[in-house]
């Protein structure tokens, strides 16, 4: 039961005020009237505070605030009677005295008239405080969610640039530089283009196929420098597809998979064929390799591709299709198609 100082002070103050007012209508000494009002006031406060917490569970049709209001109304007459009984020092019981009964009636009525309103005021103030607390909690939760989203994005960004890829590539470039090779500059440019494009990718909600193709080209040039004897690639794209919208990393995911899971594990390597074409109102992307082929698995081929499927479904409201087919004698053909949406230049 909460009987903070503030409440007690408030009750005392209000009781005193009413006591003074009531004593104007009575012949009894002011301090006695005040005492009587005080007793009622304290009883009301106790009732209010008690029913604030007890009983812990209420039937659904009963609001706690209603219970509190009823309680204080119910407690006023008996507490007033008690107040009178306490403060009447005559031989006669107070209720036999007309004047006193009148006073009792006035006290009870005043109580019943004003106490509920004061209680309502207190309840409203409480509700206000609760709402403000909830708003604050909501704000905290939201910033927590924002923070988590930011962290997830960060992790995604970090995951985009694979350390193995980066350091291997840099090692290769360093050898070219040391050897004074004329290719060093070109390859470095390709790497820079790839990094520049790959890093901010996830922030954008969509990119154009034209940019995706350039990104894939930069990536393949870098990989070809590293394994010139094992990687060949051909890019055939419809120029009209340059400003078609698609989620970032759409093409690159397929190309990376083809290299990582198709070509790299193969001792002899292979060739990657990339085709982008438009038919009717749909855009088609095909990435085909003649590497080691499909394997059932639980590994990252699944994760990158699964994420891509989800992003495609989200971006095109379920109108996108993804499929992975085996190629004879060995290799994989990954195909994506989705409706054409053009990005404003």
């Amino acid at each position, binding site marked *: 039961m909460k009987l903070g100082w503030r409440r007690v002070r408030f009750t005392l103050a209000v009781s005193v005020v009413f006591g003074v007012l009531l004593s104007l209508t009575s012949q009894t000494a002011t301090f006695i009237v005040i005492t009587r009002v005080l007793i009622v006031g304290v009883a009301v406060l106790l009732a209010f505070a008690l029913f604030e917490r007890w009983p812990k569970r209420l039937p659904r049709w009963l609001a706690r605030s209603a219970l509190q209001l009823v309680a204080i109304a119910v407690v006023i007459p008996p507490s007033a009677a008690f107040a009178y009984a306490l403060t009447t020092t005559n031989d006669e019981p107070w209720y036999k005295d007309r004047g006193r009964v009148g006073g009792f009636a006035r006290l009870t009525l005043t109580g019943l008239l004003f106490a509920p309103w004061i209680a309502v005021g207190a309840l409203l103030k409480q509700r206000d405080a609760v709402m403000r607390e909830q708003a604050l909690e909501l704000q905290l939760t939201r910033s927590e969610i924002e923070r988590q989203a930011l962290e997830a994005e960060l992790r995604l960004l970090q995951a985009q640039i694979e*350390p*193995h890829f980066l*350091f*291997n590539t*840099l*090692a*290769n470039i*360093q*050898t*070219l530089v*040391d*050897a004074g090779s004329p290719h060093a500059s070109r390859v470095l440019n390709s790497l820079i283009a790839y990094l520049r494009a790959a890093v901010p990718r996830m922030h954008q909600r969509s990119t154009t196929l034209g940019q995706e193709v350039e990104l894939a080209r930069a990536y393949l040039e870098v990989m070809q*420098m*590293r*394994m*010139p*004897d*094992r990687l060949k690639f051909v890019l055939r794209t419809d120029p009209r597809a340059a400003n078609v919208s698609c989620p970032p990393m759409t093409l690159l995911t397929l190309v990376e998979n083809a290299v990582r899971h198709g070509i*790299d*594990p*193969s*001792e002899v*390597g292979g060739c990657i064929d990339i085709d982008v074409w438009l038919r009717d109102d749909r855009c088609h992307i095909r990435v085909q390799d003649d590497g080691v082929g*499909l*394997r*059932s*698995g*639980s*590994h990252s*081929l*699944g*994760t990158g*591709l*699964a994420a891509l*499927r989800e992003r495609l*479904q989200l971006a095109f409201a*379920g109108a*996108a*299709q*993804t*499929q*992975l*087919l*085996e190629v004879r004698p060995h290799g994989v053909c990954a195909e994506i198609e989705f409706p054409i949406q053009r990005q404003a230049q």
Partner: protein
Amino acid sequence: MNPTAVIADDEPLLRDALERMLAVAWPALRIVAQARNGREAIELFERHAPQVCFLDVHMPGTSGIEVAQRIGRRAHLVFVTAYHDYAVQAFDHGVLDYLVKPVQPERLADTVSRLRERIEAAQPASNTELLIQQLATKLRQPTSSSWLRWIRASVGQTVRLIAVDDIEFLRSEDKYTRVAWRDDMKQPLEALVRMTIKELASKLDPERFVQIHRSVIVNLSAVSHVTRSENETATLYLKGRSEVLPVSRHHVQLFRQM
């Protein structure tokens, strides 16, 4: 007699670069061969029997670790790795030699002096079977979930990868399993997987796939409802499909808790 070595790396630029750097750091060392992958590395080792082998860890086909296991202690091994991540802390015991790409001349010089000491003292190679086994375990890619996410299945004449999420139920057919799934356009389709239902049962996430019969596994998210049948068995109905699946007596208790 000059010491000999074999360099193995799938990236030709890096092989040449290491050879050039070794010419400076260890002029007496003779590079007898360069291997493009693990298989070649083993072949060339058997042919030339060098004292030292530089092995790239990540190579197609047979990895540097597998090559090390084959060579054993017959040569001194130096592992070369692109990224010094936590798994590579296996090397930090200091017993196994390693180099990080891009190779720094100072680090190469350290490794070279260690090797020369051991060779001149006619000490055996430090790469015991145990150490290499430990290394192999540490470098194995950690998978967040070992349950299957993709399955290779035949659809008519073509073979495709089907996302396990899209599978609604599986039914055994002799040594193979018929898989009922939905494509991106929500069309119900069927495919054949070259694995027995028993194998699949052990590889599918049991939180999502439940075996309801000796020959049937169902994806819980595809279940519409289950009704009791005679002989304490039950019948399972799927969302959006006309097939009904039998639930054997043995498996009925799974649904009692639901």
